């Protein structure tokens, strides 16, 4: 039984290796990043799309409610770009939160992309927990984008 399973898996892996990968639309990857879950939805994985969207949204909202801070680029701090990249994974949620905190004027500042506020309250007890939730949501969405890429390419079902 186990030997049959192993043989079947090997045959599937060989067949997958022999099949050339399908081209992946850049637009699909973009929308998958911008709106959590939309990539899976467009690929017909509706249930998974709903689950991913709900989880990422729940983590993001928890982070905001705990008064966590989104990472934003800071001058003389190259590492802040690294954290910003993680938070940018939230897609449209990241931009909505930045607009909520800074207003549209803040985004049009001459210092852009510097000088933005990430929101949150450092004195709040939930500040660091909130940050953790916000970063986790962003990183999860980046993994979701990679999953969309693999499904669209035909590497995963």
């Amino acid at each position, binding site marked *: 039984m186990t030997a049959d399973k192993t043989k079947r898996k090997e045959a599937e892996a060989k067949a997958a290796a022999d099949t050339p990968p399908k081209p992946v639309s850049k637009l699909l990857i973009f929308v998958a990043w911008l709106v959590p879950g939309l990539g899976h939805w467009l690929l017909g994985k509706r249930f*998974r799309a709903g*689950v991913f969207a709900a989880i990422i949204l*729940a983590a993001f909202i928890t982070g905001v409610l*705990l008064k966590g801070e989104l990472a934003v680029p800071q001058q003389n701090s190259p590492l802040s770009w690294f954290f910003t990249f993680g938070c940018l994974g939230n897609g449209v949620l990241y931009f909505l939160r930045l607009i909520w905190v800074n207003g549209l004027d803040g985004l049009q500042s001459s210092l852009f992309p510097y000088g933005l506020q990430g929101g949150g309250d450092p004195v709040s007890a939930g500040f660091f*927990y909130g940050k953790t939730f916000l970063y*986790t949501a962003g990183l*999860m969405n980046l993994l979701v984008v990679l999953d969309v890429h693999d499904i669209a390419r035909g590497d995963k*079902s």
Partner: protein
Amino acid sequence: MDHFTLLVWHALLVAVFFAFLWRSDARGRKALFLKTFLIMVVGAVVLGWLMFPFP
């Protein structure tokens, strides 16, 4: 919300996420969810206790 509730909530979200990301069948998802969730919750509590004697 107290710290433990937040820990459980975070572990729950992450465990469900990885169960759906890495497994495609219901049984595999359930198993991975339980494993990931328990490792995160129990691991964090054990680590917390181990850190207790240190200043």
